[in-house]
């Protein structure tokens, strides 16, 4: 496949989700930027939220990601299926940490 061929497939795949990608970027950036202006770094202390919510997101994603594709975890069958699902769920768990960790930091400061 050529370079522009690959880009074209990526482009058409992303097209219906551009709004979601933009929303997720904003949800990621807003707490990060605000917290960083108040001294936050990845090493800062989080809280209950950043400890328990990312694993919860991971577990929920195992069920919700197949449902989002109009399928179900019952049809996750081959090792490739499991790798894809676990990979996507870990990704969402990490994303949740990036969102909740600075939020918890800001809450800690307020308290």
């Amino acid at each position, binding site marked *: 496949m050529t*370079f522009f061929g690959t880009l*074209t*497939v990526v482009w058409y*795949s992303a097209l219906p989700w551009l709004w979601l990608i933009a929303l997720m970027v904003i949800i990621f950036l807003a707490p990060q930027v605000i917290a960083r202006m108040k001294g936050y770094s990845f090493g800062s202390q989080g809280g209950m939220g950043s400890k328990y919510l990312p694993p919860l997101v991971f577990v929920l994603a195992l069920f919700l990601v197949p449902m989002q*594709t109009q399928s179900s975890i019952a*049809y*996750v069958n*081959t090792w*490739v299926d499991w790798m894809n699902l676990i990979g996507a769920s870990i990704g969402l768990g990490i994303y949740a940490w990036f969102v909740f960790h600075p939020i918890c930091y800001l809450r800690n400061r307020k308290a």
Partner: protein
Amino acid sequence: MPKKYLPFESVSRRDLLKFSVGAGVVGPLALTAGSVKAVNTKAHIVIVGAGAGGISIANRLTNSLQGAKITIIDTREKHYYQPGWTLVASGVWNQAKTETQVSDWLPKSVNWVKGMVAEYDPDNNQVILETGQSVAYDQLIIASGLQLRYDLIEGMDVGLIGQGKGIGSVYASLDAAAATNTEIKRWISKGSGTGLFNLPPTALKCAGAPLKMTFTTLHRLEDTGRRDDFNVEFMTPSGKLFGVPFYNDFVKQRFSDQGVTRNDFWTLKAVDADAKKATYSVKGGEDQVKDYDFLHVVPPMTAGAALENSPLAFQPGESFTGWMKVDRETLQNPDYPNVWGIGDVMGMPSNKTAASVKMHAKVLEENFLASLQGKPLTAKHNGYTSCPLITGIGKAMLVEFGWDSKLLPSFSFIDPKKESWTVWVMKERMLRPAYYAMLEGKI
């Protein structure tokens, strides 16, 4: 003197936008980039049909030729992503997902003649339109797809689809696919009854689609929790469900596991929509009449009268009689070397899929350019065709094969013999983008 192009001149703003979005994600894949160098020609190239094959070869040749005049002939203004119709008829997609405008895909430089070819006259290098207008060519590419012959089933009319008479057909049109979904829902809400699913006695596009419709309907029936109240039967004119032995056996087994009665060597002959009765001719036996609550009609398919009556078709006595005659590897007509084929219209085993069109387009472009330059035709089509066989709403198998049913898997890590969620996601999310990239001539 031919215009000199800067290397980036053919990159459109749309391409640049794609570049900015996609570069981060697929940067490393750039190493695989490659393109055909432009060839100078003054030839007038006429493409018949602006469907999947016609549009993709028009885009490819626009990029790889300089000075050529390209004309495409078709009346259809809307372009449909037909592989999505099974999802529409299964209640998974809405209609809008499969509809775009032909003009969105055609390069501006291509001359679009809104007409239908009624006659091919290859001895005089011209085609004659239904209006009587003749269009002369130096090179002809036939991409006219196939004709759905509902008229060969007595009493059948596409207007009956979705009218509460229990008739559905995913093939007829986008509206018919949506109406098929309505008719299936109507049957399910009745709470019981018989559904008859069919295969045609001819070659068909996407041979997996009638099976997919059966599997997604079974899924919906099972979801009611009252599957035993419904009777599902499947009719095969040839005794076979699928051309590749492994998948044929798989579907047979699955049908028996899911309580589907198979009637082999039964061909749908007539429909009495008001009485909800279907008549079948049975090989070696008497005609049989079946009552139904839902009937999935798959019509016989042919190449269309204009082609069938021309010297460009395989003649009676040859294999693939009535379909376009091409060398199945070079896609060139053996009798008229300036005539080429792409897509469903060609007479060859299987290969009536958009996945095949993707391969045809590459081979055709390469051989077409070679021929213009007087070089031997070295690109060879390997018969590749593919069909993500949906076995339930949410799972599918990636069926890919070539000549002689040889499996040709594209991804070493996807087991072509296993049902998979990943393959379903590919079908539901990735194949439409890949199809659009194919239309643009990018893959």
